[in-house]
């Protein structure tokens, strides 16, 4: 048997082989990398950016104001001057949609921010301490869950009064929808707190606050972001419902929901007035749902290749 000489050469020093070539990626960078590959989710994200530009920058680009009446031009069909037509008082529908978009999106984001803060705080404490406290806190959530939430939304709206408008709606929607978030955060924390790195951090003398804020909640970030992305369209929906029963945004102010509720009355004579706000809501819902599903895939460790 003939053996080549080079088989017996010593291997090259191991140091370079152990060198990590790729820079370490954080959870968010990793998720973003996978999110970018998902076409539907990216389409949703681009649509959302488009809607935000439409609602927040659009009003500066058109010459009509959302509350200027023009009684000579009621119920105009869509045209070059009024791309989406005009409403019962001759107001430009596009201007109203832009303004309504601002209100609807703001309600979505702010109310979810409120329920996120309450949910993360509540769920974090419940999951971290566990045992009796956890049991008690979760029973409280069970009780709140068994109430039809619309009943509380309506009651609270009537207590606060819809004159307060936007702020009240945001607060009410924020404080009735946090239970789902709390449950998810609690579930995550319950698993995470048993991990070795938490034990290590605790051994090194980290305080409870530090453990929660620095170690536990950042690791539960994925589910928190997903839940938030899917909660925003629900808040927009809920606001639309409030407008429908007449305790949402009051005219001359507008949201997509209140525009749709207004348009509903005029549908036999002028279907456009329902169609455009409904389309705006539908597009927003689709975009948020695509983004939410995309985020779920992006944060799912099973999808990691």
């Amino acid at each position, binding site marked *: 048997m003939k053996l080549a000489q080079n088989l017996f050469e010593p291997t090259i020093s191991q140091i370079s082989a152990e060198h990590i070539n790729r820079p370490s990626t954080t959870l968010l960078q990793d998720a973003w990398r996978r999110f970018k590959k998902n076409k539907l989710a990216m389409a949703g994200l681009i649509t959302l950016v488009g809607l935000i530009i439409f609602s927040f920058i659009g009003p500066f680009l058109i010459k009509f104001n959302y509350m200027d009446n023009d009684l000579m031009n009621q119920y105009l069909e869509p045209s070059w001057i009024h791309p989406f037509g005009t409403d019962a008082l001759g107001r430009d529908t596009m201007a109203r949609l832009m303004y309504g978009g601002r209100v609807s999106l703001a309600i979505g984001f702010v109310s979810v921010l409120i329920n996120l803060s309450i949910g993360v705080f509540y769920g974090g404490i419940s999951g971290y301490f566990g045992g009796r406290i956890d*049991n008690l806190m*979760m*029973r409280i959530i*069970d*009780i709140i869950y*068994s*109430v*039809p*939430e*619309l*009943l*509380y939304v*309506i*009651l*609270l709206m*009537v*207590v606060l*009064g819809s004159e307060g408008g936007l702020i009240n709606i945001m607060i009410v929607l924020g404080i009735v929808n946090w239970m789902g978030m709390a449950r998810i955060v609690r579930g995550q924390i319950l698993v995470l707190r048993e991990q070795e790195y938490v034990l290590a951090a605790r051994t090194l003398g980290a305080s409870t606050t530090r453990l929660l804020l620095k170690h536990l909640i950042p690791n539960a970030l994925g589910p928190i972001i997903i839940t938030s992305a899917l909660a925003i369209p629900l808040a927009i*929906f809920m606001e*639309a*419902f409030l407008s*429908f*029963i*007449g*305790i949402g945004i009051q005219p001359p102010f507008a949201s997509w*929901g209140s525009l*749709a*509720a207004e348009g*509903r009355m005029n*549908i*036999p004579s002028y*279907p456009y007035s*329902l169609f455009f706000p*409904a389309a705006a*809501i*539908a*597009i927003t*819902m*689709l975009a948020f*749902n695509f983004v939410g599903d995309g985020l779920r895939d992006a944060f799912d460790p099973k999808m990691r290749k």
Partner: protein
Amino acid sequence: MAKYLLQRIASAVLVLWIVVSLTFVLMHSIPGGPFSREKQVPPAVLKNLEERYHMNDPLSKQYIDYMKNVAQFNLGPTFRYEGRTVNDLIKDGLPKTATIGFLATIIALGGGLLLGSIAALWHNKTPDGVATFIATIGVSVPSFVMATFLQYYLGYKLGLFPPVGWNNGAFKNLVLPSIALGAYPIAQITRLMRTSMLDVLSQDYIRTARSKGLPGCVIIGRHAMRNALLPVVTYLGPFFAYILTGNFVVEYVFNIPGIGQFFVTSITNRDYSTIMGMTVLFCSLLVVFNLLVDIAYTFIDPRIKLTGQKGA
């Protein structure tokens, strides 16, 4: 099982009591009362009215009296509807609401399970796309918009179904309201079913069934369905809550004299006894449904045992 049921009923009564008390407090903190109208009621009349409805008693006494009545299933007289009790309102309205809710449940469950299974069987092919598209439409339009479009186009323009009215529960009057109510949950169920069916179909025992040469419908119906159903059953609790409260929109748009209307009008009218009555009714129904869902678990998946479960 009996012990478990007793435990559940006891906790349900506790939950109901807490919810009713909370609503009582919230309700009395609403500004204005049942007799504050745009036209001022003369003070003497107001006094008599308050006397008659025991509204001049201290709140604590009103609360205790109310609780005593509720314990005997007496929800008290309404403030807005002359000579009728809340029990009357429920007796008249609930069957109508329940009929539509039942039909919507059939539409949502039947359609959702079918669409979800189809989507999973033809994963990433045209039927999947179609099913997902239908499912997405349902979740992206508010129910009042959906109801109005159905009413206007199918009912009014095409004249396929009567656009409004109850008409003694004639079937053609029920079609549009049921579809409008079922559209949102059909979408949710389709999505749940698709995900869980995909999960189940990738399991080894399904491959075994397939390699034995069983036809697709037997694989789905006999082997995959029961396991894939579990996430859907979990969704049924929130689903029934939706059917109960979602009814308001549908009843309003299609002008059906069900129970859903009182849910909103009682609050804007400050009709105290009706608000409380609705709370009690909805919460009890919800508690019962949730209990049924938990029991249904054990039938679908015998591996699940209720008694050992903590706080199910």
